[in-house]
């Protein structure tokens, strides 16, 4: 096993996780104000109304598919009588449709961002860099799907998935990952880069998904001074204190 392989499949995943978790904690502590979707709906809503749901709902299914494929071992789906080929057909169809929706959505959103003056003016360099990585991750992912549909289907649940699970039990199986085709390796690497970028780009709004809204009372009361969440902000860490 070469040094690059160790760097890619043993060091990089942990580096990614540390950057993600540490970055989120840092941003939560120092930049809650910047933690927003920075919506451009006020400028332009016609294209957004099509592109944004297409992209986001597509992405949600893509993420669900990733979890399904990476977390659930092949032996489990086999135990309920799902054959490897059936699994692949399902994964190809669902993943392919979701992936194409995501790609079409982001294409429309980027087109809108580039051609609608006010939206383009509100785009930072940080955003542009993020779009490059995001689109690269989506394209690489779709490529793995399409290539395995066109040629022989690589059973990534024998290679990528064990490595992925191994990362979280602190036993990353770099050997398994090395056996995967280069398309999967590329997608994984770009994916790790994207995950590491989350805390430092507008992608951070994904970690503000308001699930709690479903369970809280409609009207929120907060006291100005007392209580567990006072309306007066606590002093911030910094030089002043």
């Amino acid at each position, binding site marked *: 096993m070469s040094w690059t392989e160790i760097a890619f499949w043993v060091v990089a995943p942990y580096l990614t996780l540390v950057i993600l978790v540490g970055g989120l904690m840092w941003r939560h502590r120092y930049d809650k*104000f*910047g933690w927003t979707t920075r919506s451009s709906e006020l400028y332009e809503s016609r294209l*957004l109304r099509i592109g944004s*749901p297409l992209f986001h709902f597509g992405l949600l299914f893509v993420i669900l598919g990733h979890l399904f494929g990476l977390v659930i071992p092949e032996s489990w789906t086999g135990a309920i009588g799902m054959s490897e080929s059936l699994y692949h057909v399902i994964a190809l169809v669902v993943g392919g449709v979701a992936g194409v929706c995501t790609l079409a959505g982001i294409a429309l959103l980027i087109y809108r961002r580039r051609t609608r003056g006010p939206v383009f003016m509100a785009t930072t360099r940080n955003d542009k860099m993020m779009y490059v990585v995001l689109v690269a991750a989506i394209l690489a992912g779709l490529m793995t799907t399409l290539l395995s549909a066109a040629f022989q289907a690589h059973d990534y649940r024998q290679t990528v998935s064990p490595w992925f699970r191994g990362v979280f039990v602190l036993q990353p199986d770099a050997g398994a990952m090395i056996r995967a085709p280069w398309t999967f390796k590329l997608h994984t690497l770009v994916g790790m880069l994207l995950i590491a970028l989350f805390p430092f780009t*507008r992608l951070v709004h994904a970690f503000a998904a*308001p699930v709690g*809204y479903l369970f809280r009372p409609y009207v929120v009361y*907060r006291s100005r001074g007392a209580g567990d969440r006072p309306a007066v902000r606590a002093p911030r860490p910094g030089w002043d*204190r």
Partner: protein
Amino acid sequence: MTRVMAQIAMVMNLDKCIGCHTCSVTCKQAWTNRSGVEYVWFNNVETRPGLGYPRRYQDQEKWKGGWELDRKGRLTLKSGGRLRRLLSIFANPIMPSIQDYYEPWTYDYENLTSAPLSADTPVAPPRSLISNEPMAVRWSANWDDDLGGGPALASRDPVVERIGDRVRLDFENAFMFYLPRICEHCINPACVAACPSGAMYKRSEDGIVLVDQDRCRGWRMCVTGCPYKKVYFNHKTGKAEKCTFCYPRVEVGLPTVCSETCVGRLRYLGVILYDADRVTEAASVPDDRDLYEAQLSLFLDPRDPEVAEAAARSGIPDDWMAAARRSPVHDLIMKYRIALPLHPEYRTMPMVWYVPPLSPVVDALAGSGHDGEDAGNLFGAIETLRIPVEYLAELFTAGDPAPVTASLRRLAAMRAHMRRINLGEEPDPSIGARAGLTGDDIDGMYRLLALARYDERYVIPTAYAAQPGSVEEIGCSLDYDGGPGMTGPFGEASGQPVPVAIETFHSLKQRQTSEDVTHERVNLLNWDGKGVPKGMFPEKEDR
């Protein structure tokens, strides 16, 4: 046991509003003279009949603001319940676009000096502040001010449309009045209920509805939820902003900026106590027309010993109770019953109320050669001039003319009674009696409405329970607008928020003392004469 909550509420006496927009301008200078909120008017003054701001915001079939009763009679957001809100989170389908407000602009003054020599005087062409492109100015916050645009615009007023076709033709001749609007700081706020992040909240001490800028994630649901469209989206920071009821001023006993600067002295501020446990029940009454009475039934009499006892148990301080007993707002709403809520049918239980204008009736009388201050004439005119009353009823009582008529009759009685006294005639107790008022009532109303002394208009408890150490705002002094700390690494919105006091202090100081002007284009309305914008004057030549 009754759970008593206190709210600082406002009443505006529309009879005295001359539509000068001083409240809007001072509010804008205090709160929204920043980039990103150019189009934001926490306070605006609308001409009625008119389209309002944003255009036709009262058309809830389109904008889906406020609450409605579902099939089982339960209160739900008109724009859909929790799940539906979350499913539409990726693109809010019913949010006004910038065109529904207006596209903010400035002028390209450089053209005044750089234009080539020609027979015509050069002009400063307008440039959009949204896209920086040249634009044609077609609409703004007050395009239909004073019925500008004529019947074509006025007849598109959603309230006029509700009254029906038969009034449209003679309506513009009948009357016109001004409606200053701020956030209603509702008891049952739909914006708070629509906020997925839980960033919007109602302060339990004083009922002021605020946006926590640190928790707002820019989902924009509050803009849809508010039927008055008084929550705005800051397109630079990506966060919601709204009228703060000038909480930093109110907390130290000062009236809000709009109240303080109102030249007509028509705004009243005071404490109102209400029964917090019955809010949902009151907001759920089946008939829209019962909502005014339902909201009245929430309010508690601070002079009632039982209420005082319950308030003490609910933790309301003694000085708040003292202020509640002197509250002009409570008197105008509960004692004299002349103030009415704006659009109670939205079921948000608004807390900025209005004394309806009697002047259209007086003007109509005087215009037709009658004595506009004679009691008999006035009472008769209120009954016969149905159009103004119906219009006011659509605004204030979900279409029920009775409370509007009663309020106007009391105002008419006061006017006729005081006229007699002014002319040295014998006071006639029967005038007040016809409107259900005693002589003392009329005296009290006259003091509040006509004399309108500063300390009787604004009764604000000064001492909020002090929280040692947590009152002063902490912030970095470099973070003012345009300062080095303003733009964080992740775009304009990022970085720590700047405390209001510090931001205002620094930006004012900078504007007043700096020689150079940081912005390329300067809006003449904001320009204080300090510094010389590039291109405004010819370059000085060295001789």
